[in-house]
């Protein structure tokens, strides 16, 4: 006979596991930019400015993802990321970092 406490908690634990599985459709990587004041865009959408931040690289709807960074005093930067490249970066512990060149 199963423990009644386990039976009460099972639906909660199962729901938590299900929600975790649903939300894991991507690879989280820290995205940073130099200079830190530069704005960062992923697939054409602005994701922020300033300090490094985690971003979920989701390849469910595209085969590659691009990251751009811009600052008024620098040349803009652009980089493609494929699934293989992101997996290799995870394996080697490499962050996504874009460094802008002065104009």
């Amino acid at each position, binding site marked *: 006979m199963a423990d009644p406490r386990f039976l009460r908690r099972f639906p909660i634990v199962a729901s938590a596991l299900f929600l975790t599985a649903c939300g*894991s*459709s*991507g*690879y989280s990587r820290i995205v940073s930019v130099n200079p830190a004041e530069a*704005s960062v*865009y992923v*697939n*054409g*959408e*602005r994701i922020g400015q300033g300090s490094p931040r985690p971003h979920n690289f*989701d*390849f*469910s*709807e*595209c*085969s*590659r*993802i*691009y990251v*751009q960074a*811009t*600052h*008024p005093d*620098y*040349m*803009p930067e*652009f980089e493609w990321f494929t*699934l293989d490249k992101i997996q290799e970066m995870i394996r080697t512990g490499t962050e996504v970092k874009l460094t802008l060149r002065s*104009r």
Partner: protein
Amino acid sequence: MNSLLRTTSLSALLCLTACGSIPSREFEFDAIDVSENPRPCLVVLNDDWTSAAEKNQFVNVTDDNSLVLKIEFPKSPEVEVTCAPIQVADGKPTRVPKSRKEARDYSGFVDEVRKVQLTDPRKVFFILPKKAGS
């Protein structure tokens, strides 16, 4: 990441496009400058400047507006897209460039060329720097 889901959805996309005669897909184009202001541009596919002008493939000319184009991939898995900066006055291009050099020389901004693939993200976004000395 569920690689099976990814592979299945991308395969489905490729199969669906393969069933038609020519693989094609809609893309949305937009452009800004390094200060993140909308930048008026002409979107040129595979260096066909004449068609781009005839079909009014402009972004940010009358307002902050993007351009949606259905792109066909008849022979190559990639299409070359040139985002050519233009000058605008009273909601109209003052001059429609016929080459990358003309676009650069006349607008004071630098164009960008990008190879776009069928399974790329829908939004094709350009950030154009000013030409040196501008």
